[in-house]
């Protein structure tokens, strides 16, 4: 028997004319954590779908436990012990924890009648696999994302899983929850289960994986032990280009603060927050989920509440009661979730870019000058090298990084004093991330005051000349220049 649990060689898969997988080799040993890394659209998910039987490969060989496997259907995959935990966890928020745990095996066993006792037994058995305890009768929708994930893992273990594939499991988790998840992953690994971990977060991959498989443009460019890789190699393999961390060097900081916040309080969200922001600065605000960082941003953009405290803009005290008011005061906000809060996905790219500056483009009676709208938005497409051939196409046709560029250009169209970026590169590839960072640096040095709110510490460290750390709704630390390191920030947060 071979040392590998699953071995795939020369896997090919095409969709229409697109070569999604081009002679991909992949192998995973039992009792190891294997990371599958790569930027969006590199073929990661296609490979996963071939393993789980959703797609059929065009050619190539698959060996599972030393036996050649001809064709895999989803049912075969389950029988062989392959379990996929999708990003959305495939749970039923309206059902109880017990039902969520037991329903899959009940369906697989082709049962017709519900037997509560048996369901409960199955659920308890599932939980006992990782020694996890939770109220079985709680509704799934009431659990935290981390708990939901553990339930999903328990459910996967019911099927005598030998290989568990986790699709970007850390996306919605806080640092603490990620640590807890990794503990579980190691526990599973030590019990002999192979784990395939899909991610594009460099730090996580180095923390958790034994082996790594990096894919780019449908080919695997690296397959081997993680320990043999440096972070620089890794980035090179991911993007195909050398990327140096480009630290932000402020060159153009004004004397007078453009924004001054004093003793700002939104009850139960944050309290007594004071800071100053000068033109040409990039101020980082970081903290764990629930530290009040996002709420602070919302209050500065007129979407949150202010119970006490003052905001001074260019020396004048202001009251920001709505986003319209904030825009009038030349404050821009790029929200955390660009898909639902920052973009009209099913509207043309051009319309999205010009959305917050339509007033400049209207004739009498509020009619829009379409010709001009397209000309102006095309300029932005060029400036930001947004990857599209036609600004008439919907925003949904773009990748995450390019979408973020649209959201940025939407604001830059208006003359801004302050730009607040909340999680500017969440779900964005390393390459596009780099572009966005460079862009923000450039803007700051041209005299814009920027606030970056992020829990991606590496991002904060590279891009900010000053960082404020928040915890439980208050500011617990501030650092500038060389004092900004991941260790220093973590010391305060923890």
């Amino acid at each position, binding site marked *: 028997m071979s040392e590998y649990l699953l071995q795939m060689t020369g896997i090919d898969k095409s969709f229409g004319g697109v070569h999604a997988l081009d002679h991909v080799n992949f192998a995973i040993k039992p009792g190891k954590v294997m990371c599958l890394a790569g930027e969006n659209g590199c073929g990661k998910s296609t490979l996963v779908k071939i393993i789980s039987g959703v797609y059929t490969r065009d050619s190539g060989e698959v060996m599972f436990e030393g036996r050649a496997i001809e064709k895999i259907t989803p049912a075969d995959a389950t029988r062989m012990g392959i379990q996929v935990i999708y990003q*959305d966890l495939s749970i*039923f928020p309206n*059902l109880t924890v017990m039902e969520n745990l037991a329903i899959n095996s009940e369906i*697989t066993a082709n049962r*017709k*009648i519900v037997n509560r006792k048996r369901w409960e037994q199955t659920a308890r058995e599932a939980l006992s696999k990782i020694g996890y305890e939770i109220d079985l009768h709680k509704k799934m929708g009431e659990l935290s994302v981390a708990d939901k994930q553990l339930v999903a893992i328990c459910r996967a273990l019911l099927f005598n899983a030998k290989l568990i594939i986790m699709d970007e499991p850390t996306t919605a988790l806080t640092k603490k929850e990620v640590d807890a998840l990794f503990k579980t992953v190691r526990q599973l690994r030590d019990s002999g289960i192979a784990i395939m971990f899909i991610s594009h977060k460099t730090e996580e991959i180095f923390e958790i994986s034994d082996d790594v498989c990096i894919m780019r443009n449908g080919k695997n460019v690296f397959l081997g032990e993680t320990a043999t890789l440096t972070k620089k190699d890794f980035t090179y393999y991911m993007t195909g280009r050398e990327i140096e961390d480009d630290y932000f060097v402020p060159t153009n900081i004004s004397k007078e603060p453009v924004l001054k916040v004093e003793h700002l309080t939104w009850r139960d969200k944050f309290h007594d927050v004071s800071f100053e922001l000068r033109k040409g600065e990039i101020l980082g605000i970081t903290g764990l989920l629930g530290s009040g960082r996002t709420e602070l941003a919302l209050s500065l953009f007129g979407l949150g509440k202010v119970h006490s405290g003052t905001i001074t803009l260019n020396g004048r005290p202001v009251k920001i009661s709505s986003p319209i008011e904030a825009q009038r005061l030349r404050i821009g906000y790029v929200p955390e979730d660009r898909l639902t809060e920052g973009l009209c996905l099913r509207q043309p790219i051009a319309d999205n870019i010009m959305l917050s500056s339509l007033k400049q483009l209207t004739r009498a009676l509020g009619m829009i000058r379409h010709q001009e709208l397209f000309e102006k938005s095309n300029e932005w497409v060029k400036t930001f090298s947004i990857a599209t051939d036609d600004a008439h196409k919907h925003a949904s046709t773009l990748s995450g990084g390019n979408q973020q560029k649209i959201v940025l250009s939407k604001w830059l169209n208006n003359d801004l004093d302050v730009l607040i970026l909340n999680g500017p590169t969440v779900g964005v590839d390393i390459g596009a991330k780099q572009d966005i960072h460079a862009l923000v640096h450039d803007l700051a040095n041209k005299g814009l005051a920027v606030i970056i709110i992020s829990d991606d510490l590496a991002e904060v460290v590279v891009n900010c000349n000053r960082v404020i750390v928040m915890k439980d709704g208050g500011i617990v630390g501030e650092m500038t220049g060389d004092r900004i390191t991941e260790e220093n920030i973590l010391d305060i947060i923890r």
Partner: protein
Amino acid sequence: MNKAALKRMTRRTEFYMFIVLILLCVLVQIKSGGKLIAFPGIFTRLNVTVLRTMVVNGMFAMCSLVVMISGGFDLSFPAIAALSYSLTCTICLNNGWCQNSPVVGFLLAAAIGWVLGMLNGWIISNFKLNTMIVTLGTQTLFTGISMGLLALKEITSTLPNGFKTFGKLYILEGVDGKIRFTLSAMVIFLILLCAIVSFILNKTMFGRALYAIGGNEVSAERAGYNVKKVKFLLYSSVGALSGFVGMIRVCMESQSIPKAMVGREMTIIPAVILGGASIFGGEGTVFGTVVAVAIISLVSNSMLLLGIDTYWQQFFNGLVILVGVTVSALQAKRQKQ
């Protein structure tokens, strides 16, 4: 019952609706001078009327409930019922069927409803379209078939005797002053149906599939449910049931009027929502639905007794829609947080 279970219960819409129903009963009982519930004997002219109103509404509500749990909206069940019973009565009349026993009529109506429901199911499961739009289309189509294509007529005095006598069956009779009242035997069908639906929803994998699909359709598919098949089965069964319920109504009213069902969905669906079914799917119980139907039937039947103009009925129905939808949306919001 432990504390956690009690807490869970108080979070449910059904629980509050039940309290509302009890309070309403007390109010009507006092205001009407004890006309709602008799001691001893329980049954009065008022409450047998309320029960009678509940039969058809309650059974239709079951049709609507199962669809809403699966995350869909069925606007076409009254149209299916209308076409099924109008066609059935016309066929029976022309052939001289059902003069003694109504069984053939019921089977025929259910079969027609089944075929019509299959059309819904086929479109919805194959093309994955919005159920409200599909059933709005089929509703209009079915009404068009019955009024235009087949030009089905009202059947009143000539209705086959089997139906008439069946509808007049009662399980209990009493006297209020000089007026005799009876409790219709059709109530048995309501109770039976509630029991069956409750069993299917809670005790069968098909029932759990409806909740699962309503909760997260993609997950249900991944978990191994054949979502297409479940949906087809659901809509075709609801069609058959609608035809059956339509026949019950014909028997109870001793007449078959093709237009009688128009707009009925707009009173049934709000009742189901009021009873705790979520407009987003995945939530809803038989108990809650029955309670909500009882509230609506009680109010509409006691308005005259309480000295309220019946024009207020419309006002009340509107209120029910708004309250029901708001509660449902608020609950979904709370669950998200």
